């Protein structure tokens, strides 16, 4: 789906846990997330900590969307 959206002309970032699949299949902007059942969450944290974690991940995604890339890039730090 990510490639279809890219092919339609929209910049797209894939937030996912199993980044190797995203790489193999060919997404261009990738943000690694926490875990499969809760990519943008962590039930072990309290509500505020979890929200802060989610915000941090979304911020990375926005960085990815505003960064020019030529090749597949994983936005990690």
């Amino acid at each position: 789906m990510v490639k279809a959206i890219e092919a339609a002309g929209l910049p797209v970032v894939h937030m996912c846990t199993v980044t190797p699949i995203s790489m193999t299949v060919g997404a261009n902007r990738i943000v690694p997330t926490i875990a499969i059942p809760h990519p943008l969450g962590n039930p072990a944290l309290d509500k505020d900590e979890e929200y802060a974690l989610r915000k941090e991940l979304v911020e990375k995604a926005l960085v990815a969307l505003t960064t020019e890339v030529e090749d597949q890039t994983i936005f990690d730090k």
Partner: protein
Amino acid sequence: MSKIKVVHYINQFFANIGGEEKADYPAELRVGEVVGPGMALAQKFGDEAEIIATIVCGDSYFNENLDKAKADILAMVKEQAPDIFIAGPAFNAGRYGVACGTIADAVQQELGIPAVTGMYVENPGADMFKNKVYMVSTKNSAAGMRDAVGKLAPLALKIAKGEPIGASCQEGYMPNGIRVNFFEKERGSKRAVKMLIKKLAGKPFETEYPMPTFDRVAPNPAVKDLSKATIALCTSGGIVPKGNPDHIESSNASHYGEYDITGVNDLTEETYETAHGGYDPVYANEDSDRVLPVDVLREMEANGVIGKLHNKFYTTVGNGTAVASAKAFADEYAQKLIADGVDAVIMTST
């Protein structure tokens, strides 16, 4: 019961007209004639089918006069109105293989008549057409005629009768990108052990599933000004309004959902859930923001970090969903996103 009507296409060599020097022989229709390998086919057909006409064409003529040759031959086939069209077998003859593949494909596409052909796996026509036309795998020379006809005739009959076609290794055609199930004689573990013993001994073996290669799409330019941009959220994690009103399936989804989040600042246990059956749903059901981060993006919208969070999100279940389906969903909703003035997309997956 009437016999199945077959039109057979062969080249100048197999029609006994001549070799290379006659490769410029123009397309010729011979009504009521069975020529060359057609005899072997006819014998294999028995009472079930008959070759009502044979079309002969020189390999050079075909490849150098593509449009005219195709048009002429299609007209001939249309007039004969067969139940099935058979081209070849071409073995390792390159131009012949390309001609067989080209004309068989054209007959299927433009006349809607089923077609089948056969050639050696390394024939250039093979890679070009094996995914478009059923193509029997033959030996690399006419010495393999009996073997070729032995596969070509039964397959042609099956196709003509509209019977279900089995797996490539059962019916003798080249794998064509469509996976077909069938029951083997030995169980999988036994086949694995046998394959291992061959691989250890450096002997040739055949994998039951060749690894695919993936095409690439060039990345789009980055968003210039986030504070003015409309960002849309999409997910394969199956987040849906509570109750899954559109019944998106827990696996191999047949459709996607489009849901309005105007005025929604946060996804809660009472209002949203996941339909995805491939992961432990407990966490996503408690708080769907863990898969679709609406809460964070609303805050960012309020603070001016992003211009707008698009008022719709698109969701489907990625669990065992066929790639072709997912691609079709995204092709469709990507157009909607563009029409709605979205500038960029965040896709989340589980």
